């Protein structure tokens, strides 16, 4: 939890805005969690606790859902999320080499976040751009027909734009 933010009332503004949609219907839980994650970048503990208070859904139930679906994160992520596609087409064409190259370039392992919190590298089951395999997605942009070298270049480009 970010202590500095929590002390300001602004921290809860997105929460309150999202919760205005709550109509007491359990089937809203997943959409609520999706919106909260969009607003906070992940699902902080205090947000889950307050969600439980407001909805009456047990924390254990919320955690059950949050840990079941791969979309939800309980830890903050880097500014840029690099998703490496491990779909079948990407696998047979060499996704592993792409992952090795990107992880080596950033000095982290799959699932990790760089120390400067710029990059998180994740694996994803399939982006559905199989004919451009191997493919990665950085934030919302897809990059296809990669080689280990061009994958490194893509990462360096993003980095250069940040510098």
């Amino acid at each position, binding site marked *: 939890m970010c202590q500095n933010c929590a002390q300001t009332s602004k921290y809860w503004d997105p929460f309150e805005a999202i919760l205005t949609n709550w109509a007491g219907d359990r089937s809203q*839980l997943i959409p609520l969690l999706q919106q909260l994650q969009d607003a906070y970048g992940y699902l902080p503990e205090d947000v889950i606790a307050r969600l439980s208070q407001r909805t009456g859904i047990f924390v254990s139930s919320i955690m059950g859902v949050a840990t079941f679906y791969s979309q939800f994160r309980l830890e903050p992520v880097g500014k840029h999320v690099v998703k490496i596609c491990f779909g079948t*087409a990407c696998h047979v064409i060499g996704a592993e080499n792409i992952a090795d*190259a990107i992880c080596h370039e950033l000095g982290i392992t799959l699932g990790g976040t760089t120390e400067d919190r710029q990059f998180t590298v994740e694996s994803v089951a399939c982006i559905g751009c199989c004919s451009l395999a191997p493919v990665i997605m950085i934030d919302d942009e897809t990059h296809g027909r990669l080689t280990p070298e061009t994958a490194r270049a893509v990462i360096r480009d993003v980095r250069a734009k940040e510098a």
Partner: protein
Amino acid sequence: MKQIIIGLGSCGIAAGGLKVKDTLQHLADQAGPTLTVGETGCMGMCYCEPMVEVRDEAGNRTIYGHVDEARAEEIFRHHIQGGTPLAEAVIVTSDGGGHEAGFLEKQVRLVLERCGAIDPESIDDAIGMEAYVGLEKALDTMTPAQVIDEVLTAGIKGRGGAGFPTGLKWKFAAGYEADQKYIICNADEGDPGAFMDRSILEGDPHSVIEGLIIGGYAIGATKGYIYARAEYPIAIRRLKIAIEQAEARGFLGKNILDSGFDFSLTIKEGAGAFVCGEETALIESIEGNRGMPRIRPPFPAEKGLFGKPSNINNVETLANIGWIIRRGAGAFAALGTEESNGTKVFALAGKVRRGGLVEIPIGMTIREVVDTIGGGTVSGKPLKAVQMGGPSGGCIPAELMDTVIDYQPLAETGAIMGSGGMIVMDADNCMVDIARYFLQFTQSESCGKCTFCKIGTKRMLETLERITQGEGAEGDVERLEHLSHQIKTNALCGLGQTAPNPVLTTIRYFRNEYDNHIRNKKCTTSQCKALIHYDILAGKCIGCTICAKKCPVDAIRGKVKELHSIEQDKCTKCGICKSVCKFDAVVVE
């Protein structure tokens, strides 16, 4: 007025289609109001992305492939301003020309008839190609029972993989009385290596919406859901637009087309769980729970969403419905085989030369799809196997390429028709590794509810990992087979029951590869990294330094004009050194 149309499905965008559109838009703006720049969904020829179409006043279509910004300018100068097509870049024309026309020749586009031809964000484009004609016909001239009869007569089977007759499914749901029923579109396309549903939703969302409304009318459901993968943001955005447009035109909402029938549609975004493609797990997920399958019976037709009678159909199945009602069951039944009618869409990918979205009449052989449409392997190396049906399917070996694509013949090979993933593998792919890959997938996606799937797939994966790491033991293959049969018989849902298929088919057709890994600790295709190492040959290396420069992990040592060597503990076995060496000095063993 001439039109320039850019293919902006996910593949087109990923390949750089948006930049091409900007370039052409800029040029068109300068040229004045003599032409329009528009967009369309997936044209199916993903291997040619980004693609640009020039449509003249008479509707003649010229399609260009591999268009980057420079090529776009060239096309603009030649074709738009000069009036002559840029011949060398034309891949297909509407009169059958172009050097890639072979990709389309054998295809029959029924589900995909509007994909790549219309702007998916324009309901007028869709209506211009007969969208919602089937709906009007159903509401105006048919009773719900007649609609179900028509779908039964058409003989369409579920396109999500299992192949259950759609009309029968509807009949069951129609047979239960309730104050509320639901119809659900399963757009949780989770099979890795499959993108049929995404392309349909991105390219022609109205076809799916029409199918849902007709289905709702048939079974007596006034509410519909589309459960879509969150990983498909473009599909979801276009669906939202399409729903708004359909509401504005009176195809959705109260008293649709003055028929007295009400129907509303809600999109539910999935949150990333493969098992939610299983219909009862999908229902749990819509209800806001962990997506774990329910024990059946009761089947969803009796007790589904919120405990009410529900019907769940796959995207492609629903996209067929409007066509069937509009053109009649007879026209549909004229396509396909004795046992199975209509067409099937496949996502052709992997090591194939022409990968993309392919729609064929059921009954074609695998060879025709891979060779005639797909153009064979991209490497030119011999084809080894085709994986069909994703994690629930199997690897069909080269010698069975003449198998007819139909539910039963494919099931006999040990694979399944599946939802439509078709991954081509060449001589460089290791079949044990492929089995391990799929097991890793199903194991990590197992929901954990039933023991056979939860623990059985874990034990299978551990065994496969040992084999690919050179630690396999005699009897491992038999243990895998034994466990496979246990899981197939006892797992609760389709995910578990079919999880062993990739392992069983690779054992059945490629047993020698398992034996080679286990007995000789060798992976002949050099895919299993624990079993290989790279070396530089003394007689061949001339010390050009290229491998050392290209090595991403600085594992190669050596001075100019001297023999280089690889530091094995640093080497990640990525193979770049071998691919860049011009003197065949790098070998893998």
